């Protein structure tokens, strides 16, 4: 009996020590489960990715103090796309650290959202944990999560970092990705290089 307890303890100890050690690097990979999260929006409401299982979700990393993110707000790139694809859940995530000069209080963010007609939830990720789980690097940095909760797209909003093309001339990767998802296909390209300011972790 004592031997059994002794060996069981050993097995449990070793498995918990070794099995629980962190893996090398876990960034979100297209085709695999999107990292789950629960975050508070600027209006205080809580949103979990799990709440939207069965729907396509777009995640947009946002920072109103980043001129590139702000240009898209001014041009209505995101809001127009969100309205065009009414079936899709659009969530903006702001991972700016409260220590950063770019940080906005929720009230300031709400005023900004009203000014630019941003009518979808803007979630605060002040610790940057969700940003790091997705590997969000820029504002904007876009992700599409499919109805099964798998990551379907990771990258830029479009092919025009400097914003010199007209909207019609741009290849909007999220727009074409959502059209593909709606038709039961996978976005192509599924990965692109995001552009913009660095996320202010």
């Amino acid at each position: 009996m004592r031997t059994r307890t002794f060996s069981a303890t050993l097995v449990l100890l070793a498995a918990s020590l070794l099995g629980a050690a962190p893996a090398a690097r876990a960034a979100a990979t297209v085709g695999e489960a999107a990292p789950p999260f629960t975050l508070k929006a600027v209006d205080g409401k809580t949103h979990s990715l799990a709440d939207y299982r069965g729907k396509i979700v777009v995640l947009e990393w946002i920072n109103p103090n980043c001129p590139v993110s702000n240009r898209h707000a001014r041009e209505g790139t995101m809001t127009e796309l969100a309205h065009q694809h009414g079936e899709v859940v659009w969530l903006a995530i702001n991972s700016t650290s409260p220590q950063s000069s770019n940080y906005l209080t929720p009230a300031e963010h709400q005023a900004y959202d009203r000014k630019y007609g941003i009518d979808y939830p803007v979630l605060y990720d002040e610790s940057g944990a969700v940003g790091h789980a997705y590997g969000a690097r820029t504002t904007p940095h876009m992700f599409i999560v499919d109805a099964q909760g798998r990551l379907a797209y990771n990258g830029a909003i479009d092919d025009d970092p400097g914003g010199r093309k007209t909207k019609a001339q741009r290849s909007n990767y999220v727009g074409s990705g959502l059209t593909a998802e709606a038709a039961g296909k996978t976005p192509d390209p599924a990965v692109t290089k995001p552009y913009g300011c660095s996320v202010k972790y």
Partner: protein
Amino acid sequence: MRLASIHLLLSTLLLVPEPALAAAGGWAMNGPSAVRLITPWQVAPAAATEIRLGLHFRLRPGWHVYWKNSGDAGYPPTASFSGRGLAGAEILWPAPRRFELPGGLVAFGYEREVVYPVRARLRAAAIASHEPLQWTADVDYLVCQVDCIPYRSALGVTQPVGEPRPDPETAPLIAAWWKRLPQPAESLPEVAAETAFESGGGGRALALTVRLRGVAADPLGSDLFLETNDQFDCGRPRVESIPGGMSFRVPLSRRQATLLPPATTFAWTVTGLARIGRPMETLSVEARRTVALEAALPPSGIARPLAAFARGPRAASLLIALAFLSTLLALGLWGLMEIPLLPRKGHKDLRTALGFAACAGTVWLLYALSLVVGAERLALVELALLVLALLSWLRHAGRRDKLEGPP
């Protein structure tokens, strides 16, 4: 020359970007940055078919502009060139440096001052007419400190043509930055470059290794920059000295869970090198190599489906637990440990043989584990199994001594 300097001074003071009849166009002043288009000639030779222009940036301390791969954030400058006699123009990319950003992000680029060399091809007929040529560059760029500001500027320069006369300011400036362009590895006979793709952990632990022989690290340090490859995210390179050269290992992580193609192309630039025997000469080397990805995946047919299954820490825990169970089974069969339901008497040879079979199972499970975890964790598991075996043998020996009593 004095006129040119005065013009330059005036256009700088007046902050007006305008075409200048000289080797340099006026500065476009954009917040923390200033940019102008320069040529190395006060008067360009009428027989020229190619000319080395430059996009000259000056930046306030702490601000940077980008290399062709901007790193985790930003974007590289783009320019469309036009003008009489210009048949084509291409921006070239001098050796960059690395900027650390909050959150472990990195950017690749240049600070304080940079001249992006521009290789421009000329139309012989236009230049032979000896009339001044007006060129413009419509430039888009992002300048960042921690904050970023995008700018767009129309730059211009007017290039007189005739009896060639280099400009004493811009010609050495362009030449100095041209020298900072990475040299193709193929063009350096004394340098041997080897590019290899490594895959461990069932396709999870990927890395690109570049070994350069015939070079040493510059005292200021050596670094490796990869051009973007959409299939992978790149980590920080581990730089090591190897006999007769340097080695760079860049961890890669896959951005997509689909099967890897049989081969892919990596373009790398290594900066901060010195030629062996010529330590004063700083060198950057670049190469574009297609490497096989398939060959680097687990070789065994059994391991492949297992590697596909074994993703993430839960699979590792399961494999570790099974390895412990099969070891316990072996110890039980050998009679070193009491395990219920296992016969402890009789068929001694059969029990010993089955114990070895259980050990073989442990070996296979550890092999499978090696596809999922790193070498250190694998060694820890093996050590723990050894300690388990040692402890059970010590207990067994102690009990046996008690039963047998003192001799």
